């Protein structure tokens, strides 16, 4: 047996790309299996699932109700009408919802480090990232995605957009890249918890806080804050720049028009950084020993 392992390792090592890819495939496969297990467990209590999914839908819905209440008093906010803000809100909410569904469990990492249950995941022959991400997979988070899509649909239906093929492509591109950018934030935040186990709430500033920020147009915020979320934590690429492109409105900070097409690139860079942070965190991990 030992010899077989040695041989297969000897075959894999020279081709680093192949090893990377096989680990990715292995990780996605394991993620799928663990998620399927949690889905079966969730569906054992259908009524409970229906209630929590509705609660998830309603909790995020209140955010939009607050915006509706604001628009009971004003016609524009930061120079943007309600349907335009609905477009921003729906795009950010859907992208965040997708990331939350797939990787939302990552913020439990600190707890696992603290109580020592991370050790169990380390001894299994499955990538740790896949295990942590799939842990307690919460299908109820579909509630948030549904709410985001409804508001997005409302914005798209009401607005009079001069559609071009590029603008049509931009919508799914924006949602998927946005979800990837938020996903990288979840992974980066989890990596941070290797060093500060109790700091799970810091992550909320960038995930939930970022989502709240992106629901409003960039004209509302101070220039330095807009610079920060463009160049430091590039949340502006989740929905601001692509949506402004679709709406044909002016970009913040005098950015050129083509930056609206950067989200996939930005998402790739973010995942590169988040992956490096995750590996660094995992390497530095010392078990609590219980």
């Amino acid at each position, binding site marked *: 047996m030992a010899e077989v392992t040695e041989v297969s390792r000897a075959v894999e090592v020279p081709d680093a790309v192949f090893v990377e890819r096989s680990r990715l495939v292995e990780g996605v496969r394991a993620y799928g299996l663990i998620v399927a297990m949690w889905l079966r467990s969730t569906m054992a209590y259908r009524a*409970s699932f229906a*209630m*929590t999914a509705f*609660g998830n839908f*309603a*909790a995020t819905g*209140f*955010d939009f*109700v*607050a915006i509706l*209440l*604001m628009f*009971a*008093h*004003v*016609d*524009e*906010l*930061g120079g943007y009408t309600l349907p335009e803000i609905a477009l921003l809100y729906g795009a950010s909410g859907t992208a965040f919802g997708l990331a939350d569904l797939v990787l939302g469990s990552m913020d439990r990492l600190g707890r696992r480090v603290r109580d020592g249950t991370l050790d169990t995941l380390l001894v299994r022959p499955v990538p740790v990232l896949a295990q942590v991400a799939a842990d307690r997979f919460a299908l109820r988070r579909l509630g948030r995605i549904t709410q985001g899509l409804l508001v997005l649909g409302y914005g798209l239906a009401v607005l009079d957009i001069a559609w071009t093929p590029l603008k049509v492509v931009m919508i799914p591109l924006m949602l998927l890249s946005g979800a990837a950018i938020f996903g990288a934030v979840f992974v980066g935040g989890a990596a941070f918890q290797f060093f*500060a*186990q*109790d*700091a*799970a*709430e*810091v992550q*909320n*500033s960038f995930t939930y*806080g970022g989502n*709240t*920020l992106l629901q*409003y147009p960039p*004209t*509302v*915020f*101070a220039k330095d*804050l807009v610079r920060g979320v463009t160049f430091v934590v590039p949340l502006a690429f989740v929905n601001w720049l692509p949506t402004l492109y679709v709406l044909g409105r002016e970009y913040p900070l005098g950015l050129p028009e083509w930056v609206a097409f950067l989200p996939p690139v930005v998402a790739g860079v973010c995942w590169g950084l988040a992956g490096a942070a995750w590996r660094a965190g995992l390497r530095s991990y010392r078990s609590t020993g219980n």
Partner: protein
Amino acid sequence: MGMRLYAVVAAGGFRRHATYRIATAAGVFTNTVFGFILAYTYTALWDERPQLGGYDLSQALTYVWLGQALLATSAMMGGGFEDELVERIRTGDVAVDLYRPVDLQLWWLAGDLGRAAFQLLARGVVPMLLGALAFPLALPGSPGVWLAFLVSVTLGVVVSFALRYLVALSAFWLMDGAGAAQIAFLAGLFFSGLLLPLTLFPGVLGEVARALPWSALLQVPADVFLGKHAGWGLVEAFAFQGGWALALLLAGRLVQSVATRRVVVQGG
């Protein structure tokens, strides 16, 4: 026995929460980030409509930062002690608690007041200071208003406790606090005025929202802080909060006595 015991329990609640230093710092950071985001959106709103809801811009900004400062203190979105009590009810450990020569409700209330005192100091003061540095806030000049604010916050914490105690007691029947906790979370989020001051809620929705107990958690203390209640108005505000506190605490005792009989019937 008596007051001394509950004072010790309260001090314990304070110390217990004081041990989570990194979590507290992380909470302060998050409160500050949300404070900044909301402050900018409120600025855009008040730019369009100065005097909206009876507040000028600096009062509206003060409201934002008070919301962040009191979020943890008044446990507007739940949390604090319910999970622990629900767990004791679920496992049956609560039977041991009922044997103890202390009042169950007052025991948890004392602990929660200790927690609230810590969180007011640790998670309230710093975001408020940072907010005051970055934005023109309307801070009260007279010590009397600060004192009235502290009284109002304390009453708000008691109302919040009484609500959460009822939520936790529901575990006697539901065995799982998740559903009730989620409803309480939603109500707290919306009707405390955390998302938007209740004075901006239109028509009947506004009247109902301002009459519900959750308005005692943020709207009333914020209005006291902003000097909206003075003289008899202040007495009325305290009476509103005190009335809800009393009614909900009594409801908690009633539910508890019904639940306790249930435990005895089950054989503990």
